[in-house]
């Protein structure tokens, strides 16, 4: 390494990490933290990481949900559902992800109109080719009471469900825990919300000059990338789910059905808890792939880490080695975090020998 930097320096290329304190001098379209062109390159690094994490988390959530349903769908006894699920998997798995990103981006852009002709929902949500604009909640003073009541409701539900499970185990009497919990949360927070004087104000987006200002803005690039990553990764997750379920011995489903469990209950209580252990390891890989694939965003200009940091920053300061090493380290760490979380879940799910 020392040799490396010596050689670079001999050739007149700057080395070291001083550039991180230099003013970046360029603008970025989406920043989750305060940023402008007078911010430093280290801020660009942070903005890039956060944008990568944002699209990855969104993508992982939706890909998992879609994947779960499609995976189960493939095993459905309903011919149409299982065939449609199969077509979905075969179609989206075999088209290169980059093409899908470009495709959705162009679909999104082509189907939306200019800001002055936005689609409007509830007079507060606007959709146009600059993205989706939604009102931004601004928390006022009394909001703390709402937050406290929400936490208290959660605590109450926790103890309630413990009690309900115990009673179920002992007496077999069921308790409608979901409905009741939902009721508690909605009821208590609504009451406190009004009692404390409606402490949330909404900041609406409004058209000023060329664009909307105010509120939250989801960029078309984010929407397209999120959509493409979810749809693509879901195909692999669906296959993992299907394989997991199929691996559970057929006898088990027959046994639970003959015990009188409904099909849904059988999936939830018998099959999935066992299948999940088979499903998780391949899914860790898919999550890691999704994170890596998010760097294809350079093709449509979504400002994630590779686009802004190892793209623009690298080009402005020219320190390829430092920047690429930092970028690779981020992907490595993100992937390690994902596998740690998933392994933790997997360990929790292990069949406990009693």
């Amino acid at each position, binding site marked *: 390494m020392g040799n490396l930097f010596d050689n670079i320096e001999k050739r*007149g*290329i700057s080395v070291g990490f001083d550039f991180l304190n230099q003013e970046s001098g360029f603008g970025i379209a989406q920043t989750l933290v305060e940023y402008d062109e007078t911010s430093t390159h280290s801020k660009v690094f942070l903005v890039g990481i956060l944008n990568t994490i944002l699209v990855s988390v969104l993508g992982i959530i939706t890909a998992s949900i879609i994947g779960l349903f499609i995976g189960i769908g493939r095993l459905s006894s309903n011919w149409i559902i299982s065939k449609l699920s199969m077509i979905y998997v075969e179609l989206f798995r075999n088209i290169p992800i980059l093409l899908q990103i470009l495709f959705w981006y162009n679909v999104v852009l082509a189907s939306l109109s200019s800001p002055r002709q936005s689609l409007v929902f509830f007079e507060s949500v606007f959709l146009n*080719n600059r993205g989706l604009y939604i009102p931004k909640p601004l928390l006022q003073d009394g909001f703390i009471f709402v937050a406290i009541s929400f936490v208290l409701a959660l605590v109450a539900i926790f103890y309630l469900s413990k009690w309900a499970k115990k009673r179920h185990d002992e007496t077999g009497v069921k308790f409608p825990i979901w409905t009741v919990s939902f009721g508690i949360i909605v009821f208590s927070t609504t009451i406190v919300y009004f009692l404390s004087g409606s402490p949330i104000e909404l900041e609406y987006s409004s058209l000023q000059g060329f*664009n909307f200002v105010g509120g939250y803005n989801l960029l078309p690039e984010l929407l397209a990338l999120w959509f493409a990553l979810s749809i693509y990764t879901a195909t692999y997750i669906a296959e993992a789910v299907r394989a997991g379920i199929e691996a559970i011995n057929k006898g088990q489903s027959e046994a639970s059905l003959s015990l009188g469990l409904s099909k849904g209950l059988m999936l939830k209580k018998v099959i999935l808890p066992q299948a999940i252990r088979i499903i998780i390891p391949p899914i860790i890989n898919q999550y890691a792939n999704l994170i890596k694939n998010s760097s294809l965003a350079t093709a449509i200009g979504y400002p994630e880490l590779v686009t802004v940091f190892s793209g*623009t920053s690298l080009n402005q300061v020219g320190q*390829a080695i430092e920047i690429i090493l930092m970028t690779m380290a981020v992907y490595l760490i993100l992937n390690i975090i994902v596998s740690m979380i998933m392994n933790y879940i997997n360990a929790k799910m292990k069949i406990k020998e009693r």
Partner: protein
Amino acid sequence: MKFVRMILGFVLFTTLTTTLVFSGTLENVKKRGKLNCGVSGGLAGFSAPDSSGKWKGLDVDMCRAVAAAVFGNAKKVKFISLTAKERFTALQSGEIDVLARNTTWTATRDTSLGLNFAGVNYYDGQGFLVSKKLGVKSALELNGASVCIQAGTTSELNLADYFRTNGMKYKTLTYDTSAQSRQGFESGRCDILTSDASQLYALKSQLKKPNSAVVLPEIISKEPLGPVVRQGDDVWFNIVKWSHIAMLNAEELGVTSKNVKKMAKGKNPAIQRLLGTSGDAGKNLHLDKKWAYNIIKEVGNYGESFERNVGLNTPLKIARGLNALWKDGGLQYGPPVR
């Protein structure tokens, strides 16, 4: 595609960990029998393959001139198309011998990237293209606009400066190539497209409805574009620098691709020195005596190249302006060959 830059970075990484130094570019080029020249993939007038796949443009001619000087044959060039983001890494890592990709000469690039600018083959400036619908007459009315721009360019920095000094806000959309920026502009994703002014007219002419857009009068920056080489190889630096100068002097002295043969036999001492009939210029450059003769024979003088690629009879219709010779009121000035 996915990690192209990562790979380029890695090439750089590995070449640098071994104690290889890039002197001897001239020997390497000769041994290879071809000049590797980094250009833009599709920039009308500067470097773009025509319908038959032949590369054409001002930057392309710069590469051809160097090949003519080295080999006596302007065809011995391999063109490697690079995005703005890839270009410097490609040069640093030795993938290309010279970069002629409408690259702006700036202090940072000249001093901290291990590169040297060998001259200015086009004086440009940054401008704006806006959709007519918006009814904007001046760049000062652009507050709040979304701007399509290319990653890794000086345009990104100038834009930020310009909006900041004029107290205006903007949103950027950063794409990798001009083609993407054009699409973004066309689909209405952004209100303005900004880039080197020389390109705006070409981009405008490529729109589905060219008349739906206008170029604003403001030019917000200086963009001296020129060929770039690696630092630390002065022999090679000289060759590229003087290939450009030879074309300027040829224009000044009235030597063209058509009359060069006759001119070489003439009596004018400046022309004799340029074309190698007298003097040692070739030898001092480590080149053949007829290095400049070959450039002019095969590629032409600067004026010929300008008119053929970007001049008034091309779709770009650019007047000489700043790029006229000094004696015609422009900035192009070739130091004497003596």
